[in-house]
């Protein structure tokens, strides 16, 4: 009888593999394989197979392990992909196929069991729904990059990072204001703030400064807002930095 690439010789108690090698089966292996071969394509229960083992009457407690050893050896002889020929049906028993399962079943096979098309489609459907849900709720994070960033060394050796968020239109006036402020900051004796984020409102009439300082007892922060129609002229003198607490 052909089983996959092997030939099962029931008279001689032999299993001849694809390379022509002849494997002599033990009594237990022969009994188990004979019953599985007679019931090809059907599930044979573990209990039925255990009853075939020679040690069943002597030590029934160890028969479970013994059956597993027998199945393992048969699979070894069956060669490549033995699970597609002799498969375990979890909780029920074993099944022997006359030939290797079709490609469709191979794709759905796992080392211990198979899933049918309906189950496969159900998993795909649930996966697609999950991905759709994730996509609906999570969009790409928005990164706000400053238009201008500079690290400024103070006279006392400390440093402050200044970041300008001037918006999309980094026009000449704003460039001038940023340049002017950086120059004034560099002349500043001490700045109590490690990080200064500056943001200009859309109408160019309000500049917000977010001053931050990480200290041992936590983060300290402050918001300062300057109102002006002409920032360049109004901040031409560096006194405003001291007034607003940006410099000390």
């Amino acid at each position, binding site marked *: 009888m052909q089983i996959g690439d092997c030939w099962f010789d029931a008279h001689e108690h032999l299993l001849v593999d694809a390379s022509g090698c002849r494997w002599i089966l033990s009594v237990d292996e022969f009994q188990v394989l004979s019953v599985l071969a007679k019931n090809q394509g059907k599930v044979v229960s573990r209990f039925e197979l255990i009853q075939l083992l020679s040690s069943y009457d002597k030590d029934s407690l160890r028969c479970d392990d013994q059956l597993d050893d027998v199945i393992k050896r048969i699979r070894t002889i069956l060669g490549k992909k033995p699970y597609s020929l002799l498969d375990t049906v979890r909780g029920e028993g074993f099944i022997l196929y006359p030939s290797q399962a079709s490609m469709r079943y191979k794709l759905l096979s796992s080392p211990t*069991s198979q*899933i049918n098309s309906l189950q496969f489609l159900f*998993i795909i459907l649930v996966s697609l729904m*999950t991905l759709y849900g994730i996509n609906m709720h999570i969009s790409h994070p928005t990164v706000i990059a400053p238009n201008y960033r500079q690290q400024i060394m103070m006279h006392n050796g400390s440093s402050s990072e200044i970041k300008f968020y001037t918006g999309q239109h980094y026009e000449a006036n704003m460039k001038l204001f940023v340049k002017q402020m950086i120059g004034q900051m560099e002349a500043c004796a001490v700045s109590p703030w490690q990080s200064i984020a500056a943001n200009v409102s859309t109408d160019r009439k*309000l500049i917000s400064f977010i001053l931050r300082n990480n200290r041992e007892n936590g983060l300290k922060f402050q918001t300062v807002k300057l109102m002006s129609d002409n920032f360049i002229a109004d901040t031409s003198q560096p006194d405003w930095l001291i007034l*607003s607490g940006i410099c000390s």
Partner: protein
Amino acid sequence: MNNTILALGRFKPWQLLLIFVSGVGILVFGYTASFSHKSLNLNCLAQLYQPPFGDATSSSLHHSLSLTVEVQDKKVNLNYRYGSNDKELASINYSGVVKNFDIGSMTYQFGLAQANVQMDLLQIELPEPIRDDVQRSREALMALGTMSFNMQIVDINRLDDYTLIKFTPSGNLWACSSR
């Protein structure tokens, strides 16, 4: 450990896969659903300066602008208070609904339908940006009946109770605490 492996062994692989996929799905939906309805309370305070900036004795020295953001379920309340020398001179209270919350960009979309302005008429005139804001909101509410803008959470540090928010289209930035 062995017990766990044995317990897992009782399930078929496709069942384990299904449980995993469903679990991830429930977690994602649960997280987003809980976040979008989460209440938000922010208190933001800014020192406000008017020109001349170099004159430390000018009356602009102690001007302040504060903002309270309250989001509860789908309702939003924004309260701006303008004050000088610890005295409140004007307040604008906007109320409306949260139209949408985009978790990817952490942006709330507000639709404000009501604005209440309170002013101390005996006080000096309000600063121009605040007056402009009042005027703009008044015009929008009268013309359209609603006013839409976004509030983005740019940075959040719960440990230090620090939240940086940005309003669009005005482009105003605020550093806030939740206490």
